[in-house]
Structures are given as C-alpha cells and as structure tokens.
C-alpha cells in the first residue's frame, strides 16, 4: 500500500505574532509540523505496519531549512521517505495554488491513500486537502475521527451533529484527519538513528498560480479593557445596579 502523507509546516504556537504594515511579520517565526498532520503520519504508519507498503511525506515550504529536523522526526515515527517542495515566496494561505503544486507531485507517486490533517493551524482554511482530491479526480472524506482498512476499501468515521457518520470508499482516496484520531507514538532511539538513513529529497518548484483570495489587511485583536467594579453601600444596592447594567448595557436580560 502506497501512502502519501501531506505535511504542512506551520508557525510554532509560541511564536510572537507581529503585524507590520497590515502584514504578518513571519521573519522571526519558528515552524512546527501541523498537529493534525501528525495524526495522519501515525495512521499511515499503522496501516503500513498492518499490510506493508511505503509511507511518503510530501510537504510544500520555502527554502528555510530549519524545518528539516521536525520532518525527520516524522520519519522516526515510521515514514519512509520525504519529498520537500521548496518554493521561493511560499505562503500558507494560498490553498488553490498550493494544492496544484502538491497534486502534480502526488500524481507521480501512485498512491492508494493520500492523508493529511483536516486543516492547518496557521490559517484554518481546511481547503488544500479537498482541492487536491478534486485535482487528482479521487474521492475524499474530511474530518475523519477513525479510519480502518476493509479489504480493498476503506471505512472512515466522522463526527456529525448528534451522531457518527460511517463512510465506505474505494481507493485511491484522500482523507483528512480530525484531532485525536489516534495517539501519536514516541519513537524509540533506534528509530531516530535509523531516520537519518532515509531518503530526504528537496525539489525546487516554481510559484504556482491559483484562484486564491488576496489578503488586504491584518490586525491584532484590540486589547481587552479592564473590568468594572460596581460600587454600593449594601449588597442589595450592588445587585440592583448589576441588573440595571445587564438590562441596559449588556442587553442580556
């Protein structure tokens, strides 16, 4: 079974967010593997362990090499190869053009399963996965919480309002993983040592063109104002004032 795992490198959640001239200043960012994508790696490795095959990581990012160690960690978990598409001027908020470039690479890999996270925690668009499925002409199931192989089919479960939806699909198929789909393993030291012998290929790719939105302006949320302390002689007086405020200012009563 050939499995392609899509990994997006996203700004580390501890990175300091700064806006300069209406744009996010990315120069000081540290990057990490999108947490939803880690579930995809774990699931892919579990399938490989069960039925054999190969797990190939595909990631699109800039020429910044600081991400390499974190991708290598995914190979310590059990992925066999990594193909990193290096794009000058890469941005994480262009799902359409990014999907096009990724789909071109995946097409050559003869994948039975393409799997990634449900969304990137940078822009939360949740679009790249389904777009890739569309471009490859294969079905997709998004936001999956449980995935099982079922002969030559795959059974995906997803949480929906008030219930659980069960979907059977033929392969090849593209799946995006919801949080807590599985428990990502801690690799053993020998897996870490082995990971450096695995193929890690960098490929230069051009800036793609797609039907993406243009971001006009960015701003930080306004600073929160201080709370109000209600003054009064007695408790009854304070409660009366509070109820008045809830009626007239907060308009919740």
């Amino acid at each position, binding site marked *: 079974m050939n499995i392609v795992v899509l990994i997006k490198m996203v700004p580390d959640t501890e990175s300091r967010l700064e806006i300069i001239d209406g744009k996010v200043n990315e120069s000081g960012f540290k990057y990490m593997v999108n947490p939803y994508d880690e579930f995809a790696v774990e699931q892919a490795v579990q399938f490989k362990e069960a039925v054999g095959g190969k797990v190939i990581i595909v990631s699109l990012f800039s020429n910044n090499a600081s991400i390499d160690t974190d991708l290598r960690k995914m190979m310590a978990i059990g992925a066999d190869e990594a193909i990193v598409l290096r794009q000058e001027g890469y941005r994480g908020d262009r799902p359409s053009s990014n999907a096009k470039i990724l789909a071109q690479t995946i097409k050559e890999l003869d994948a039975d399963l393409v799997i990634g996270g449900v969304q990137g925690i940078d822009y939360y668009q949740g679009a790249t996965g389904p777009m890739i499925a569309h471009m490859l002409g294969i079905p997709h199931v998004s936001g999956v919480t449980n995935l099982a192989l079922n002969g030559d089919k795959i059974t995906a479960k997803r949480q929906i309002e008030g219930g659980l939806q069960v979907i059977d699909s033929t392969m090849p198929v593209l799946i995006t993983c919801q949080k807590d789909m599985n428990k990502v393993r*801690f690799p053993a030291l020998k897996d870490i*040592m082995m990971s450096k012998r695995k193929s890690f290929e960098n490929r230069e790719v051009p800036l793609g063109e797609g039907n993406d939105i243009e971001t006009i302006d960015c701003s930080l949320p306004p600073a929160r104002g201080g709370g109000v302390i209600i003054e009064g002689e007695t408790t009854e007086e304070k409660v009366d004032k509070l109820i008045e405020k809830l009626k007239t200012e907060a308009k919740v009563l």
Partner: protein
Amino acid sequence: MSRYEGVDFYNIEKHLTEEEIMVRDLVRDWVDEKVIPIIEDYYTKGTFPMELISEIGEMGLFGCNLEGYECAGLSNVAYGLVCQELERGDSAIRSCVSVQGSLSMYPIHAFGTEEQKQKYLPGMAQGKLIGCFGLTEPDHGSDPGGMETKAVDDGDSYVLNGAKMWITNGTVADLAIVWAKLEGKIRGFIVEKSDSGFSAPEMKGKHSLRASITSELVFQDCKIPKDRVLPEVQGLKGPLSCLTQARYGITWGSIGAAMGCFHSSVDYSKSRIMFKKPIASFQLVQNKLAWMLREITKGQLLAYHLGRAKDSGEATPEMVSLGKMNNVDVAIQIARMARDIHGANGILNEYPIMRHMANLESVYTYEGTHDIHNLILGRWITGIQAFE
C-alpha cells in the same frame, strides 16, 4: 505555565547533531506528557511510578550510550541530554535511568563475560530486567575501600555476607551489582533477586527523592554460582569507573532540574502582581533571574564540553568530578532562589520547586559528596591526597 522550550542562551543547540536534537526533543515531550502530570502524586505517596519503566525501555533510554546488546550506542552528549530532560521531570526518574545504565549495565558491559552480557544486557536495555548497584555500606560512604561485605570461595560457589545501604532501585531490582572483598580484594558480583540469603528491604522516611525507591541490600550466607563474578576488574577502580559514568549523567541532569526551576520562576515573576506590577519588574527579582541564567549557561557549557571530551576519550575522572560538583551546587542554589521568587507559593506542590530543591539535597551528597569532589580536585592540583 507556558510551554517549556528549554533554556539555551548561548545557542548550544547549534553544536548538536540533528540526532542529538531529536533525542532531546523526544525525551522532553515524553517528560511533559508522562512524567510531569503524575510525579507530584508519586512524590507525595513516596513511591516510584513503575509503569514508566517499560516506556523508558521501549524508547531505549536505558544504557543508551553503550554499544551492542540492544543498546542504542548514542553519543555521550545525547545521553547527557536524556539525563537533562529526565531530571527536569524529577531526579528520581533520572536516578533510575542512571543506576540502570551507568551503574548496572556499564559494569557488565565493561567487566563482564560474554555470557553475562548476553544474559543480562538486552533485557536491561528493554527495561525487562531492573538492576541496582551495591557499593555504599551503613558505615562506609565516602570511604568505600573500607567496605565490610565479604565474599568467600566455597568450592563451586561464592558466599556473601554483609549489608549495603542507600541503594536506588534495590527493592524492585532483578539483579544487583555488589562489590565485596574476596581474599581482601574488591570484586564485583552479580546477585539475582531469587538468590537465597539475599533480601532488599526498602528504606522509609525520606524527605528527598521521595519518588525513588531506596533500599538496603542484606546478604546472609548468600550463595551465588561462580560464574557471577565480574572477571575483568579488581580493586576500587571497578566501582569508581562506574561512578564516573553516573556522575557524568548528573552533570547534565542537575542542570535540567535547574532549567525547570528557572522556567517556573520566569513565568511566575511575570504573572505575580505586587505593588500593582509584576514582580519581574523589580530589580531584586531580575538580579536573581539573571544569576540563574548565568549559572545555567555556564553549567550547560561545562556539561557539553565534558560530553564531547568523553566522546573523544579525553575526559578524566577529575573533569567529571568538577562537572558533577559545580552543576549540582548551582542547581541547588537555583532551586532555593526559585523558591524565594515564588514566595510562599514556592513551598506548594502546585510548582515543581520544593520537590527539585529537596531532591537535589540527595544529589548533592550521592555519587561522591560535594566535599569529596573538592578533595579529588585538591589531589589533582597538589598531588596530595587529603582523604586517606
């Protein structure tokens, strides 16, 4: 508390290999997920979290700087980083790994027969067999050469009599590396849990290393087969070479505990409001934080350089003494200073401070006391031994 991201003021990470960074991050994540949420509870109860042993074994952390026999064969710097991260969790976890790897697996690896290595090391690397190390006796701590435990040749077996004390992992160990005098010479013996005349009662009443098991080892006409002696070493250099390995791990581990105290102190001082502003805005608090960072950075550089020297075979026992002595000394001072910054909250188990501080009191004394390490350096400087 904010997410722990280590302390690396001098960018030592730049000098680590990718593999060393991956090993450090693995253990860091594991400690965050598996140790920190449970350790206060075990510390309070005074028991060791035994369920962690198999996980540590599966990751391959036991004896990970040894070669062959299912051991990972990592660099000494990688092993040091493992100790650093484990001790940020708790000194008990690092102690368990030190005793297993440096004090139990190392002597078998260095001084054992091929049969002994095959029999014990793979199981120990996987955490399926637990080892302990019996050198210290009730009346012989800094003076191990004065040991009273004796082995007598009894034809097809050796018979051991005596007692060891302050033995980490003792009660739960499957085997003990026991140092005893045979015809007046110190020799290493492998005693198994089931050997007749051997018992390992747990020592109670500790105010430090409460999440670690500390035991006595008692030998009353304890009979062991002759193939359980470690053939390749005689004299005090056997146990002392093991201690050099363990002291090296402590050089890193103690700084890990200090890094944990520093991280908590920075967080606390920035969020604790006094006189209408965070206490981090006061010069006295900043001075304390700067001192902590200064000593952590020096300790890290010392540990890193010692590790590279050990990898190239240039580290001497005296260099290891200086590392252990200095880093535990600054770690304990950093823990006390962190307690001060945390005010009364510093004594609560909501913060890791008091636990680290109490643990480090043991670390200050075990594996060669602070004073003895000074005397080892004194001997190196003057050529005169002051502890005979």
